[in-house]
């Protein structure tokens, strides 16, 4: 798929420039070209990309890079900084009105995820902030929209205010708030119908609701798969309603989500939350930094590289790498790797940072529970020197002995052996990639 080719290429370029002691303007040009492609392939708006590339180019040929001792790394840092800057900081706070109830209005295009997110937000407010929200069904157009919100309310055991589909959405919103006051609900979340930003009549309706209810938050809900049109949508909704924040949905998919960048760039409003699934507890605070890497198709590659460099003795890493290549990686090496990895942070988090890791077959069966690492360590330590060097020696009685020695079970020993084989296979795969002309240049210490 195009993405992968591109992110490979990008990583290749970055890898190339990273090690350089001297960065020429040509190098920078080449790199920004790849960055431009990566951003466009990720659906970042082309105008936003243009500005971005220009800024990176200026900084990259500037003093901070040229005078740095490690100019290659400095350039990468510039790209990431600029990208993260553009995305804004972590801002997952929700306003609180001085006089309750706090009113939140949900707006956006058709099918973006407003109704679902209304439920998720309510759930979040109750669970994390101990609030009592009321949901207001102001979508009278979409077939069964009221039923949908009512079902969500029932599932969460939260009240839903509705007046069927014959009432006017503006009246519904107003009466909903009155109801909340009466019942001492401290939050009101108004679910509005999906609409096109160019639909004057319906946009007008939102303005009326806004005027009448003076909401404390207006969240624009945007599908993270949105393409180039995201700027038009966001700009237009923002102009007409002065939104207070954005919620990005369906980020559990495999989209690069460049729309996030476009939206932030044109509205300068914070992206506050990310929808991570269809279920009502699948809402997370939005992490701009992670998104920046995702857009570039790098996982958290950069963070990973940085972390690895902090922890790993370069020379030893090289040795291990060559061992991997020759597939002579043993349980002893494995143990050493594990120690280093443990210093880097939780294992599943680390693996999550590897681009394409979730697509790697071998990894699916590798358990990534940190607690299990303790068992793994015990098992390996119960092996004889020979067994560690040559797992093929393993037979039933040896396994039994190891299980006993490590206080685990034979099936756990078996699992580890299998994982080890899978890991070796994976290394081979990675080597294959490395040899390919795209040159992924992976030399992660624990692989």
């Amino acid at each position, binding site marked *: *798929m*195009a*993405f992968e080719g591109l992110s490979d290429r990008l990583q290749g370029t970055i890898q190339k420039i990273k090690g350089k002691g001297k960065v020429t303007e040509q190098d920078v040009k080449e790199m920004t070209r790849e960055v431009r*492609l990566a951003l*466009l*392939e*990720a*659906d970042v*708006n*082309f105008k936003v990309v243009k500005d971005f590339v220009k800024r990176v180019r200026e900084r990259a040929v500037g003093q901070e890079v040229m005078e740095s001792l490690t100019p290659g790394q400095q350039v990468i840092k510039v790209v990431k900084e600029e990208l993260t800057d553009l995305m804004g900081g972590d801002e997952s706070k929700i306003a609180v009105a001085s006089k309750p109830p706090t009113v939140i209005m949900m707006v956006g*295009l*058709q*099918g*973006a*995820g407003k*109704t*679902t997110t209304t439920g998720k937000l309510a759930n979040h407010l109750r669970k994390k902030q101990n609030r009592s929200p009321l949901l207001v069904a102001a979508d009278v*157009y*979409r*077939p*069964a*929209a009221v*039923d*949908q*919100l*009512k*079902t*969500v309310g029932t*599932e969460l055991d939260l009240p839903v205010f509705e007046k069927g589909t014959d009432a006017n959405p503006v009246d519904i919103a107003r009466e909903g708030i009155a109801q909340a006051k009466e019942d001492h609900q401290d939050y009101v979340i108004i679910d509005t119908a999906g609409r*096109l*930003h*160019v639909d004057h009549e319906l946009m007008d309706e939102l303005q009326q609701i806004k005027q009448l209810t003076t909401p404390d938050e207006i969240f624009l809900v945007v*599908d993270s*798969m*949105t*393409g*180039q*049109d995201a700027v*038009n*949508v966001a700009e237009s909704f923002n102009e007409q309603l002065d939104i207070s924040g954005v919620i990005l949905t*369906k980020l*559990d*998919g*495999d*989209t*690069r989500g*460049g*729309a996030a960048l476009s939206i932030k760039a044109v509205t300068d409003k914070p992206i506050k939350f990310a929808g991570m699934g*269809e279920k009502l507890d699948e809402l997370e605070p939005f992490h701009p930094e992670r998104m920046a890497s995702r857009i570039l198709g790098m996982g958290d590659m950069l963070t990973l590289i940085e972390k690895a460099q902090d922890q790993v003795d370069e020379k030893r890493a090289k040795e291990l790498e060559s061992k991997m290549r020759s597939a002579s990686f043993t349980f002893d090496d494995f143990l050493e790797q594990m120690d280093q990895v443990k210093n880097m942070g939780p294992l599943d988090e680390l693996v999550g940072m590897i681009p394409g890791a979730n697509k790697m077959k071998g990894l699916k069966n590798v358990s990534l529970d940190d607690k299990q690492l303790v068992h793994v360590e015990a098992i390996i330590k119960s092996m004889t020197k020979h067994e560690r060097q040559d797992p093929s020696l393993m037979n039933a009685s040896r396994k039994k002995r190891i299980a006993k020695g490590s206080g685990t079970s034979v099936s756990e020993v078996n699992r580890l052996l299998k994982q080890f084989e899978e890991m070796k296979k994976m290394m081979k795969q990675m080597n294959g990639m490395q040899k390919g002309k795209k040159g992924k240049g992976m030399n992660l210490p624990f692989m």
Partner: protein
Amino acid sequence: MSFFKKLKDKFVKEHDEHEQATDDTTTQEDNEEQTLANETQETESTSSSFDVEEPDGEVHEELSEAEEAAEQEGIALKFRKGLEKTRSSFSGKINDLVAKYRTVDEDFFEDLEEVLISADVGVNTVMDMIDELKMEVKRRNIKDTEMVKEVISEKLVDIYYGDDQSGETEELTLNPDGLSIILVVGVNGVGKTTTIGKMAHKLKQEGKKVTLAAGDTFRAGAIEQLDVWGERVGVNVVKHAAGSDPAAVIYDGIRSAQSKNADVLLCDTAGRLQNKVNLMNELAKVKRVIEREVPGAPHEVLLVLDATTGQNAMSQAKTFSEATNVSGIVLTKLDGTAKGGIVLAIRNEMEIPVKMVGLGEKVSDLEMFDPHAFVYGLFADMVEEYEEEK
């Protein structure tokens, strides 16, 4: 061969099959406003871009001949009028566009690149295309804008059709004698259920007996939503309780459609993101049930794509095809400002044709896909922006 001649050859088959749709004037008229809003410059062409073929397969260049042929085949006068307009409007507009740029220089190509990227055509496709255009212009040593425009138009439509000369039909494939089953799939919120409602209406208007199966048992209110559509259109809806097995609903839908002698069964499914392996397996199972129960079915597996979606639509097309062997695309929400340019790459790479487009939320807002109008729509902005600048 001139570009427009080629175009005609390619479209000839499709057009014949479109005749029936054109006769359905009452609903078409409702749509016109929306269509107009979408493709500002395009007049009635969207609903009537048809050409006529004589039995020997020759396409007539002259309108009078086309008229003659039309007469012979008993095509309504209205239809001919539409034909006349399309022919001049599509060619005219592409020509106008290129003609506005006096010289074809870097600026022109840069504008073209930007306008196509902003229509979500995808940067790789766009760059390939521009490279080809440049090469072609160079190869033929073309300086004359007149000729360049022909090359460009040719490439633009080529990209939709690719090497596929078979003239694959954009019409729905239905079983001529017996029950036709259409499975509708796609990611969350793209417009599957709404499209089913609109399709039911269209098919019913064509005199077909339609049944709907509420195969989305997962999303809150999904069954009720399809039920409202069933009522609105006046067709039967087969449903189970929320949370039940979708394959079982579809199975019952088939039984019910068979016993009621329905012509078409439209199967709704829950939205699912293509990277969710379990959910994709569930969908494959639904399809297997259909295959097992009715030989030759499903007659269509329609992937619904939201025109607002960017490059991820390609991944959707790939993964849904792997799971269910998608036979056609419905491109929804084209009444907005998004262009859905990614379907060019999808068509090109995977040879899945767009069959219908969604142009709004009303029951009549569904139209057959018109490649002319679509390709033109991709760079309509370029014309407009250029005119504004002047």
